[in-house]
């Protein structure tokens, strides 16, 4: 009962006599032996030099990260006035980008937890990279609430900490729930990712040729030696973490949507927000996984492990969640009309036809129209076409958050309170900088850590399943080695 392993072996105590009629699907291509999988993944990390494209990519992304640091320092030194946030739109790109990055983060947990509980074994090839992506996206997301408070040196007021003012936060506020949800999410994502890494770090430790590598990987591998006892606890802990992370990931984006839905602003105050946000988060997250996995598997020669089948499955998820998002857009419009509230009606007509109509129609095209191309098998199995569609989806999901945050605030109840939000160059450079930070962290991850979960992929190799015939200690009647029973 554990890492990507099937119900057959779990239930084997009761179902041994059934035999192995069902043939396991082939989930990885190429050489199927245990050693070959180890080598293919470790070679990326152990190669003396990464591919030239890696150097080019990290030069660009690291420069953008430096720009991000510059922007953040400028912001802190000057004040939030350097952003475009002003009356009446006080939530601008900061919140748009926060929601955008948190949404992207969700795919990692979905792949690692929900698909695990659903026994979707194909996830083993992509879950490590997706979890890493989650972590890096949460880094980018978590930065925004911290820097957007203005006086960053009192950002600790967000947390329920004893302080000299004897002041405590308000636990009835969705903004505080958000602090709890996002910080729990960041912690659990890190735990999940690190725990899965421990056995693979042990593999790198055991293969290390230099003392430095052996010590570094050895330090983080904690002395893991793969004993059956270790694995038993590991697998159970992993299963439990998956079961905990599943409701967590659904709660996080629901709570993010409460930031809007609990307010009284037309266009925000709707009950559809939690499911609609979660579907959108999965949609954008999967699009980001495909966007980065296609170049990564080409660059590092992991095409046998991350196969076209994996990418195609992810594209199907994108198609499904994209259609859900489209349905949610339609439902919002229907309810705005059916609910009969004049402000609500105005808000939605204003989204589609008002000053931000350009953003609205970019969103509709990218999120509703673009994923429909994935009905065609030739498009969803073509690496570069799928990346094209997925980049459109990422753009579209950014605009979705922009439309939600900005259009509602810029057209309040009274025309005297209307305005038009424009980002400043600082806004734009900060956002581009977070992209740089995200890709820098991901490139470092690709180079220094196993991009594919080695021990987990081994559980889906045909080689790993012969033991299903053995059964448990009590059920030895059907042991395959008769000589054993005479000993």
């Amino acid at each position: 009962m554990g890492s990507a392993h099937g119900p057959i072996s779990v239930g084997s105590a009761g179902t041994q006599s059934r035999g192995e009629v069902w043939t396991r699907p082939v989930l990885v291509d190429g050489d199927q032996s245990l050693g070959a999988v180890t080598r293919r993944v470790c070679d990326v990390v152990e190669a003396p030099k990464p591919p030239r494209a890696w150097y080019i990519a990290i030069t660009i992304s690291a420069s953008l990260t430096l720009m991000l640091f510059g922007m953040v320092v400028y912001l802190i030194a000057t004040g939030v006035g350097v952003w475009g946030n002003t009356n009446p739109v006080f939530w601008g790109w900061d919140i748009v980008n926060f929601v955008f990055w948190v949404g992207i983060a969700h795919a990692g947990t979905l792949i690692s937890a929900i698909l695990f509980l659903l026994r979707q074994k194909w996830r083993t090839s992509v879950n490590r990279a997706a979890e890493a992506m989650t972590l890096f996206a949460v880094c980018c997301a978590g930065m925004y609430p911290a820097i957007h408070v203005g006086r960053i040196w009192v950002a600790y007021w967000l947390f329920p900490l004893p302080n000299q003012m004897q002041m405590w936060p308000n636990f009835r506020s969705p903004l505080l729930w958000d602090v709890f949800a996002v910080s729990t999410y960041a912690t659990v994502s890190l735990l999940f990712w690190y725990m899965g890494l421990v056995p693979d770090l042990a593999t790198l430790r055991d293969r290390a040729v230099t003392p430095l590598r052996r010590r570094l990987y050895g330090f983080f591998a904690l002395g893991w030696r793969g004993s059956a006892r270790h694995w038993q606890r590991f697998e159970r802990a992993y299963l439990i973490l998956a079961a905990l992370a599943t409701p967590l990931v659904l709660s996080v984006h629901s709570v993010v949507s409460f930031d809007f839905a609990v307010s009284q602003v037309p266009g925000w105050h709707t009950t559809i927000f939690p499911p609609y946000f979660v579907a959108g988060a999965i949609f954008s997250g999967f699009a980001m996984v495909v966007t980065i996995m296609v170049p990564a598997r080409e660059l590092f020669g992991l095409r046998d492990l991350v196969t076209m089948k994996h990418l195609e499955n992810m594209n199907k998820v994108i198609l499904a969640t994209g259609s859900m998002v489209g349905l949610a857009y339609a439902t919002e419009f229907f309810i705005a009309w059916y609910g009969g509230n004049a402000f609500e009606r105005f808000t939605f007509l204003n989204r589609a036809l008002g000053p931000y109509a350009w953003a609205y129609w970019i969103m509709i095209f990218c999120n509703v129209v673009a994923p429909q191309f994935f009905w065609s098998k030739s498009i969803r199995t073509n690496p570069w076409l799928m990346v094209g569609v997925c980049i459109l989806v990422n753009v579209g999901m950014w605009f979705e958050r922009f439309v939600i945050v900005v259009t509602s605030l810029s057209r309040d109840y009274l025309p005297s309170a209307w305005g038009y939000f424009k980002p400043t160059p600082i806004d734009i450079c900060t956002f581009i900088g977070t992209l740089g930070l995200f890709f820098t962290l991901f490139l470092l991850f690709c180079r220094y850590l196993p991009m594919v979960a080695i021990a987990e992929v081994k559980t889906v190799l045909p080689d790993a399943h012969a033991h299903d015939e053995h059964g448990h200690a009590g059920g030895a009647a059907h042991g395959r080695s008769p000589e054993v029973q005479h000993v």
Partner: protein
Amino acid sequence: MSSPQANAAPIYGYLAEFDDKDALFACAKAARARGLTEIEAYTPTPLHGLPEILGYKNYVPHMVFMGGLIGVLTGFGLCYWVSVLEYPLNIGGKPFNSWQAFVVPTFETMILFASLTAVFGMIILNGLPQPYHPVFNVEKFARCSSDRFFFIVLSRDPKFDLNETRRFLAEQKALSVDEVPH
């Protein structure tokens, strides 16, 4: 650990190497059938059914349950203490004990505490971090994290015998049987 060492053997145990998991399973069953108890298997990937053959128990789920329970109590206790006792604020006429609103932070602390317990419980029960272990003295053992399976009989097993145990392991289709020094 010192007293069994003193009267038993000058080594930690015998380590048998397999390149096939079926042979490992057979060896584990045979060892149990002989009444050996201080045994351990090492594998590159989790093998299902093996812990049951070796007769292991697993307390991680119990710990996680307790962790989650403590998380619920801590989360709700924090909300209640802050909002009702320490810093009561009238927010829109809502009751001080707005327990419905406290469900969200309580839920998140439950998940947080339970997850921390799952990971650190696993690590602590496994006796990690443990930089040194006698099996690392065997050079071949490095392949355990890649593609080889190992089985060890510890010298502190009451039925351990320098010659007998070695012969038993040699009969088990092992690629090799090595002494593991302390």
